[in-house]
């Protein structure tokens, strides 16, 4: 029995530490710990609710915007503000933009090196690579010359002896299975994706002023439309958005998805590894008839227990018996003791570090061992994220989701149960990106229709002044962040924040166990994972990366 520690887990956002017990080449137990805290929930107390979005947006710069969205929704929920449809559409477009950028960056820059052996790409044949690439899609950059130039650049880089970000990678590890040519395509698209991702975010710049961390606003969106002025979003800016959406759709359809399918084809064994929890939850998002109308959402809301796709349970953020957070293994204390769970409206955030003083070798996993709290839905540990979204939608009979999922399963020739895995998670992320690209076009067209019809309003008039707020109110803002179900709960008292609690996708997935000793998603997913070399944790990071961890988010 060996204890393997992976700290830092790299190619993620934030500070994650995994401790795993390995017996006979397999993981038998695992502990997931978030090792950095900033105290957002303490900092937000007593502030102006209208400012909260900017604070919480900084919970994370990778999924930037999603917290801002959850925040403005929570405040609008508390104050009973309904934003104009144009504002909803702009928010949806920013949402879609975020997904496309975030998912592509995750696939190529945070996840790909778990599957793609960069060193092996050096010996690929550019001509064969070109031939292969042409069979994958119509993407224009596939000439032999293109690949041989790239290979030369890579070779010069490696020959310099300065391996930079590739230094000490697990090159040559037996778990790498791709043919050289696929590896070379992977490297090429790593670079192309790096260039492309900085383009799509320009949608945020147009509607929100910058990326990362574009601006949001309680009551609407800050940008204004005026097709008769150069000083607002006008025809030129809308054309720009349109072009960005088109380029994004092309990149996703012709690069991301073909690469995903090609790579997945060689790693079908990973469709049986890393499944973990059997419960999935999604809040749903992308309202088409306003945030108040949950049935109009593109992504559906619901929970699945025990992988039973025939039944989807309702999820209610306001019900104080559904979502609760525990701290029995987290470095916090509750007034009511360590065993209780608190609904976020009643949530408490009081530091109580009981771990070893740094520098330390191992955490005391019997006691508290993480800065994440442990959220539970009706006491069940839930997995959230692209896979959960796909499963909930699939189980609810969402046609569009069913179509892309079935198509992919057929192509890979695997049953639907293949989704309950590391590979399934990674695939679900790509598949929803396809849908997002299509939906974004739809939102854009609707926006144009509205403006053409003379509706340029982007702000719910009269919702700004605190004078007519109730002296006490509470709200919840639910959304689907790229990494899963995200919600913020706010309590407002005398026009100030009385309590503000974030329960974040990575909190659900990366949290320590609950008082009953049940593992959360990361820990559970590692159980049974084969490990070829104890001192090279490639398989561990593969499964962990399939969740796209974000620890700054998770702890906040």
């Amino acid at each position: 029995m060996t204890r393997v520690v992976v700290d830092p887990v790299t190619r993620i956002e934030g500070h994650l530490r995994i401790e795993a017990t390995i017996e006979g080449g397999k993981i038998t137990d695992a502990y997931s710990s978030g090792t950095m805290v900033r105290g957002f929930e303490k900092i937000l107390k007593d502030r102006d609710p209208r400012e909260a979005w900017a604070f919480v947006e900084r919970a994370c710069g990778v999924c930037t915007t999603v917290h801002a969205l959850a925040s403005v929704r929570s405040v609008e929920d508390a104050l009973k503000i309904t934003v104009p449809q144009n504002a909803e559409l702009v928010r949806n477009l920013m949402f879609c933009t975020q997904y496309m950028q975030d998912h592509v960056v995750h696939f190529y820059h945070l996840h790909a090196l778990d599957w793609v052996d960069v060193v092996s790409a050096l010996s690929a044949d550019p001509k064969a690579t070109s031939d292969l690439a042409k069979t994958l899609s119509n993407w224009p950059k596939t000439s032999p010359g293109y690949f041989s130039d790239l290979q030369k650049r890579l070779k010069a880089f490696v020959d310099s002896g300065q391996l930079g970000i590739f230094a000490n990678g697990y090159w040559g590890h037996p778990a790498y299975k791709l043919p050289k040519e696929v590896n070379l395509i992977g490297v090429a698209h790593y670079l192309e994706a790096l260039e492309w991702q900085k383009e799509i975010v320009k949608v945020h710049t147009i509607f929100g002023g910058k990326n990362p961390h574009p601006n949001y606003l309680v009551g609407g969106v800050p940008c204004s439309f005026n097709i008769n002025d150069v000083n607002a979003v006008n025809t030129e800016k809308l054309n720009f958005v349109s072009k960005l959406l088109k380029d994004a759709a092309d990149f996703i359809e012709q690069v991301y998805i073909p690469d995903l399918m090609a790579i997945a084809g060689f790693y079908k064994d990973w469709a049986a590894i890393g499944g973990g929890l059997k419960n999935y939850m999604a809040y749903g998002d992308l309202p088409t008839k306003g945030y108040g109308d949950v049935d109009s959402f593109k992504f559906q809301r619901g929970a699945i227990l025990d992988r039973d796709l025939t039944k989807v349970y309702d999820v209610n953020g306001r019900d104080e018996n559904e979502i609760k957070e525990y701290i029995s293994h987290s470095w916090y204390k509750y007034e009511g003791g360590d065993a209780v769970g608190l609904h976020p409206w009643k949530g408490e955030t009081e530091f109580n570090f009981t771990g070893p003083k740094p520098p330390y070798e191992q955490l005391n996993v019997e006691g508290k061992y993480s800065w994440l709290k442990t959220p539970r839905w009706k006491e069940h540990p839930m997995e959230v994220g692209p896979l959960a979204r796909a499963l909930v939608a699939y189980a609810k009979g969402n046609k569009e989701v069913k179509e892309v999922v079935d198509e992919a399963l057929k192509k890979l020739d695997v049953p639907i149960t293949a989704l309950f895995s590391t590979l399934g998670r990674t695939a679900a992320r790509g598949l929803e990106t396809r849908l997002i690209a299509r939906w974004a076009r739809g939102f854009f067209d609707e926006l144009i229709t509205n403006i053409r019809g003379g509706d340029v309003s982007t702000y719910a008039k009269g919702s700004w002044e605190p004078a007519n707020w109730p002296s006490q109110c509470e709200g919840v803002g639910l959304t689907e962040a790229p990494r899963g179900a995200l919600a913020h709960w706010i309590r407002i008292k005398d026009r100030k924040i009385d309590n503000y609690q974030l329960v974040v996708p990575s909190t659900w997935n990366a949290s320590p166990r609950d008082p009953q000793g049940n593992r959360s998603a990361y820990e559970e997913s590692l159980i049974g994972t084969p490990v070829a070399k104890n001192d090279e944790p490639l398989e561990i990071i593969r499964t962990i990366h399939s969740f796209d961890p974000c620890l700054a988010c998770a702890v906040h």
Partner: protein
Amino acid sequence: MENQVPSIWGAMKAKGYSRREFMYFCGVAIAAAGLERSGFGQVVNAFETKPRPPVVWLHFQECTCCSESFIRSSHPIVADVIFDTLSLDYTETLQAAAGTQAEKSLKDTMEKNKGKYILLVEGSVPLLEDGICCTIGGRSALEILKEAAADAAAIVAWGNCASHGCIQAAKPNPTQATPISKLIKKPVINVPGCPPIAEVMTGVVTHLLIFGKPPELDSRGRPKEFYSRRVHDTCYRRPFYDAGLFVENWDDDAARKGYCLYKMGCKGPTTYNACAVTKWNQGLGYPIQAGHGCIGCSEEAFWDQGLYERLPKFPGFGIESTADTVGRTATVVTAAGVGLHAIMSSIRKRKVIEENMDESVNINPPKPGSAMPADSVDEGGDAS
């Protein structure tokens, strides 16, 4: 709240400045102090001997948005920076290796390039209880920072987190988040912003390479190249400001015409950044251009200044007090006092005034030998 009462030295002390730094501030009349150049001589040497300067990028208390911003750079594009310009040997966000292997990359770089690597730091360092609020590989952020800084040739603080503590240092700063310049004794190039503009970030690191010397810094360690102007002085909405044409409500007519956002709380007038000139995402725009005021994200303690108020709330008089509520109250109280006094006086001093009235005035001619003539000025006289 206490640290905002008038004693500036007290305020500085509360912020962690030393007495020496205080004297420095007081003594320097012209703020354009810059840093000692000598500290950078070795960087230049390093560039001459290595094809690509080795770089260590540390992450502490942050949101990784500075890294995200960095990869948005369009000129130079970030692939060229990572693969042709620098050797990014340690960066948790992008490096292939994890755990032990990642730690080894860090160690190797520092050992093989003693005094020759560039240290880029994203995030603040929490000092609460020996650093329990941020550990990596079981070690505290402070320990890692100190070790990496010791042999670094140049140190850059990315973003508001590393430069000023950013959001986690907002009141009540529960983790004692501290900017790195307060923790290491070497000069630090501060590149504030939440995050900084991508091209500003790549601009700062390539400045060193292209010109063989560090960018000139202002008194707060910021490269003048990007932080010498207020957003307000370069803002394209400035003509509306000077004309007194303001947005009064979100999405009102004025907003749709792009009037100035001053009255919506825009912090452009107190914010030093390149946003209005360099702009964001390949020069496409900046917050104001999309209708939201600048929130001052490159300024120290901007989180405690209010996003939508022109001026920060006035401390010590309840959360809703502004400078003007305090001032107005003082004035009203004073005026009331004066009024009362006038009424009282006209009653109580009536006699005095009547007595005065009864005194007819007789201006005497100066008597010889007595005091000096009343209408001559006492030239050299003492005040006694």
